[in-house]
């Protein structure tokens, strides 16, 4: 069942139920205001009505549980994940390993050839990239909105997160999301996606190190 908003499944059913009850409630209110004679239904009618409500609540609960389970399964499907925490195994599966030094205020990206780039990391579309992030001074954040990843980097610690680069070439924002000083708002960098899609490396192994 697909409704006018293009939504189908349990969500659409719940929307329909909610809408009907809203309309029913409005009609009853108007009736209470404008009807000359008071309507006195029998007790049985009231019990039936309450029973219907309880049934609908139970039905909604079951549906929402189904929806939530389906959402979680979809979320955890590995091929759909675009980012995550690195568990320390399977580093060879990544196309690129980038060391990031977060400092006041900017990001320094060091590639595998120990070359430094300032506030820009250049990757290819669809690549799987491992970021090893350290902080030079205070607590910094590391957020790539397009890859749905946020990490907090404590001083004296290393955070390892991975992302799958977007398939569409372009410039994507990398930013700090933990207040780190007067220049925090300007602590941003570019994730530059350019070039052609890599031919090898995508099936090289499991990201989570299970294979």
């Amino acid at each position, binding site marked *: 069942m697909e409704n006018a908003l293009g939504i189908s499944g349990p969500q659409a059913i719940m929307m329909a139920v909610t809408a009907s009850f809203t309309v029913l409630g409005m009609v009853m209110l108007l009736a209470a205001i404008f009807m000359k004679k008071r309507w006195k239904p029998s007790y049985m009618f009231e019990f039936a009505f309450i029973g219907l409500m309880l049934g609908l609540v139970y039905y909604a609960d079951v549906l929402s549980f189904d929806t939530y389970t389906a959402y979680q399964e979809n979320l955890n499907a590995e091929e759909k994940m675009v980012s995550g925490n690195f568990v320390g195994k399977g580093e060879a599966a990544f196309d690129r390993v980038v060391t990031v*030094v977060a400092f006041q205020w*900017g990001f320094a990206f*060091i590639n595998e050839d120990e070359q430094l780039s300032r506030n820009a990391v250049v990757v290819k579309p669809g690549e799987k990239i491992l970021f090893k992030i350290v902080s030079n001074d205070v607590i910094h954040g590391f957020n790539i909105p397009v890859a749905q990843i946020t990490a907090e980097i404590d001083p004296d610690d290393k955070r390892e997160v991975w992302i799958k680069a977007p398939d569409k070439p372009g410039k994507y924002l990398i930013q700090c999301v933990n207040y780190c*000083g007067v220049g925090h708002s300007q602590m941003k960098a570019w994730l530059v996606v350019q070039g052609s899609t890599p031919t090898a490396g995508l099936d090289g192994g499991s990201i989570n190190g299970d294979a």
Partner: protein
Amino acid sequence: MIKVFVSVGMIGGLVIAYLTVFAVGPISQLPPPESLLTGFRAKGFVPTVVNLEEDETAEEAEVFEVPPQDAVMLKQILKNSSSMPGMNMNSMGEAAMKPAPGAAKMPNAEGAMEMKADGAMDMKKETSTDMPMGDKMAEGGLLVADNGNFDREIKLTMAEWKFSAKQIDVKPGERIKFTVVNDGQIPHEFMFMNMPLMSAVTYRATRADWNLVEHKALFEKALVLPGGDFSFVLKVTQPGTWMFMCMLPFHMQMGMMGQMSTPGMAMDMAM
């Protein structure tokens, strides 16, 4: 009783107004006590080499845009300098430069700059003269090369939030070897800019995406990690004054800047 509350409120309002409008302190911040990179090198988290090479792919990608206002200003400067030979600094920009007899002020990143009206800063030479020396071209009155012969050597130290020298006096035609050391706890940058480029910075200084735009400079060394150093040889080809600074956000605003000038061309720096 109501009078008491009203007067307390009035006084409180005035105090808040004073604190927010007049008594605003300078934008400054204590630097971090130590760079943690040393420890990370021992743990193998970051490369052991301090002076890392620059990543060419990131340079070639041209990801950093020149902000529109900067582009307009720089275009205007180039146009003026090519169409009006012999024009001096004063007609340079409708922007922020006004002719002022005698010494003038160069206050802060707000950028209202005034210069001596000697007319000696010849923009024709600054933009159109190509004098190869080593691998770089002459631009803005400076010839910069990685190494070469030099008349004297200057050592500069960068730290939070200042350079070891605020004022460097040079003579036209002099060749100087600069050795710049990052003695601070934060990565820093080193740039030379002339006055038109500095005036283009004024717009950028108000933006939150400072790190995402291009900082056009006559000489640029991006990201020197704590403990790192580099050197270059610079030839002053004409009289003038140049600023050197760290262009990381708020580093320049908090004092990481200085000037190099030929005799009679120095500006007063109200810092």
